[in-house]
């Protein structure tokens, strides 16, 4: 990829033109360091109504960004949740005001490891402080303040987005009328930490990475990052789904090549996904964000009691899991439901039966989208009535 440096330059130029909030108040991070005057990039869809009761906050997942729907102005590709969000969609932007912010530690305009460190005038790299899911969520609260939203109609997110959401509800119990955590967990499992470690080791093993200093050289450890992405992609599918989609099909050839080229379609798919990813994502961001996910343990924050974390909830919850998701299993999602139940919270739960694995929440999964729409629409009616009273 000869133009990678140019591409990076171009991306940084483009990033100047996206919506950003400068968060002036200082934020004490869980690691002990403090950040202040930092950029938080965000996007909104639809219009906030006069009563300000139609706001929906979306938290994005590991490799997502603030461009939920429509065309991502940076990558020129479709937004990551175009199946669920947009005019006439489950989260209907003709009706609701949808907000999404890029997480801190990310690389789509919010403060992250490729930003310039004011102390050294060089990109942070590994000097960037280690952040947590709670740090991400606290940073985003400033955005709600900025937009003048006291209470969200709904907050939602899948995967790491769901983890942010659980943290958000625990930290700010009065900020959301309803919440939909999707395919997530209240603490990262050993298996998920292991997979994240695999992704990080792939990046760090790339000689270009150079302890994270590659940024200042306008290069990217693309081989390592691509492998990291491939690991992710395997974990987002299910065994059955993968078998059905690829089986042993060969990639545009009649027989084996007796080489190490991508003979199989599944290999070709992974390589494509891996190398397409390096064009839009920063390797150090993957290190930081996966670390934040690994450190996530809501019950630890509340002295071992997940029930305690949800004690103050008035929020109405709908937890959704997917039957073939082995990354954030139905069991893990049910544990959230059990804790919410035990804390007396208003909680609904639905398990969507599908072969499409963890990825299901991003796909056109009709039962899932129907459930999402039913819940948000019924919550909107309730929220309006409650406000009127």
């Amino acid at each position, binding site marked *: 990829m000869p133009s990678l440096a140019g591409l990076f330059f171009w991306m940084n130029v483009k990033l100047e033109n996206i919506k950003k909030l400068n968060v002036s108040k200082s934020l004490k991070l869980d690691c002990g360091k403090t950040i202040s005057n930092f950029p938080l990039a965000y996007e909104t869809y639809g219009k906030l109504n006069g009563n300000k009761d139609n706001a929906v906050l979306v938290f994005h997942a590991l490799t997502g960004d603030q461009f939920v729907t429509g065309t991502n102005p940076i990558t020129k590709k479709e937004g990551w949740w175009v199946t669920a969000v947009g005019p006439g969609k489950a989260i209907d932007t003709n009706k609701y005001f949808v907000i999404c912010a890029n997480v801190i530690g990310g690389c789509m305009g919010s403060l992250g490891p490729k930003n310039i460190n004011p102390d050294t005038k060089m990109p942070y790299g590994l000097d960037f402080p280690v952040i947590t899911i709670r740090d991400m969520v606290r940073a985003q609260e400033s955005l709600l303040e900025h937009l003048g939203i006291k209470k969200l109609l709904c907050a939602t997110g899948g995967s790491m987005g769901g983890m942010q959401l659980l943290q958000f509800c625990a930290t700010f119990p009065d900020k959301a009328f309803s919440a939909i955590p999707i395919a997530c967990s209240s603490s990262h499992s050993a298996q998920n930490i292991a997979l994240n470690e695999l992704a990080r080791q792939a990046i760090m093993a790339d000689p270009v990475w150079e302890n994270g200093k590659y940024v200042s050289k306008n290069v990217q450890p693309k081989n390592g990052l691509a492998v990291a992405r491939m690991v992710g992609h395997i974990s987002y599918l299910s065994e059955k789904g993968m078998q059905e989609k690829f089986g042993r099909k060969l990639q545009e050839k009649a027989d084996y090549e007796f080489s190490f080229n991508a003979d199989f379609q599944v290999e070709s798919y992974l390589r494509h996904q891996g190398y397409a990813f390096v064009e839009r994502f920063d390797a150090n961001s993957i290190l930081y964000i996966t670390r934040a996910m690994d450190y996530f343990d809501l019950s630890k924050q509340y002295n071992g009691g997940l029930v305690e974390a949800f004690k103050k909830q008035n929020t*109405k919850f*709908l937890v959704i899991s997917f039957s073939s998701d082995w990354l954030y299993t139905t069991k893990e999602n*049910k544990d959230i*439901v*059990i804790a919410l*139940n*035990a804390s*007396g919270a*208003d*909680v*609904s*739960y*639905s*398990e*969507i*039966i599908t072969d499409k694995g963890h990825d299901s929440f991003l796909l056109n999964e009709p*039962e899932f989208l*129907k*459930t999402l729409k*039913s*819940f948000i629409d*019924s*919550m909107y*009616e*309730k929220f309006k009535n409650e406000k009127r009273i």
Partner: protein
Amino acid sequence: MKKEFKVIAELLPNDTRVLDVGCGDGSLMNFLKQEKNIEVRGLELNQDNVQQCIHKGLPVIQGNAETELHQFPDKSFDYVVLSQTLQAFYEPEEVLKNLLRIGKSVIVSIPNFGYWKVRIKLLFFGEMPVTKTLPNTWYNTPNLHMCTIKDLFKFCDEKNINIKKVIGVNEDTTSLIKKGNLEIKNLFSKLGIFLIG
């Protein structure tokens, strides 16, 4: 709303907390919420039914009562309702124990296998009974542990479960069932509704 639900609704005081186990499409929950200001929760296995409850804005948890009642804390509801499914569980005794743990009181309804039409079918025709309340044939029925009103009466006595009220339902009429009229009511009631705990 069907007669059975009307009887159940009458047993439930206003402004209470009720768990409806096997809540179906939420029609009972909806009624209780709208008419009696009852705080409802549902547990339901079927995906379409769960969907319909969510559509109505009713809190529902998708799950199997046989295996997932453990998630509800002790005495977390004033009442737990179980309509016509006790006989379909592998271990009805365990389920009932759990319901009594979760609710301060429990309402259980059963299709009465002692109903005269059921008895006639078996006695004179030598066939497994198929009736309006028991619409399935022997090979596709979900009912594993059919019982009569008298059976459940005896069961509660043996297990020291306090029976507060038993109502027999037959078409549009209902009647109070006591020990004194148990034999006759066991013959003429299609359904038995037990308030226990």
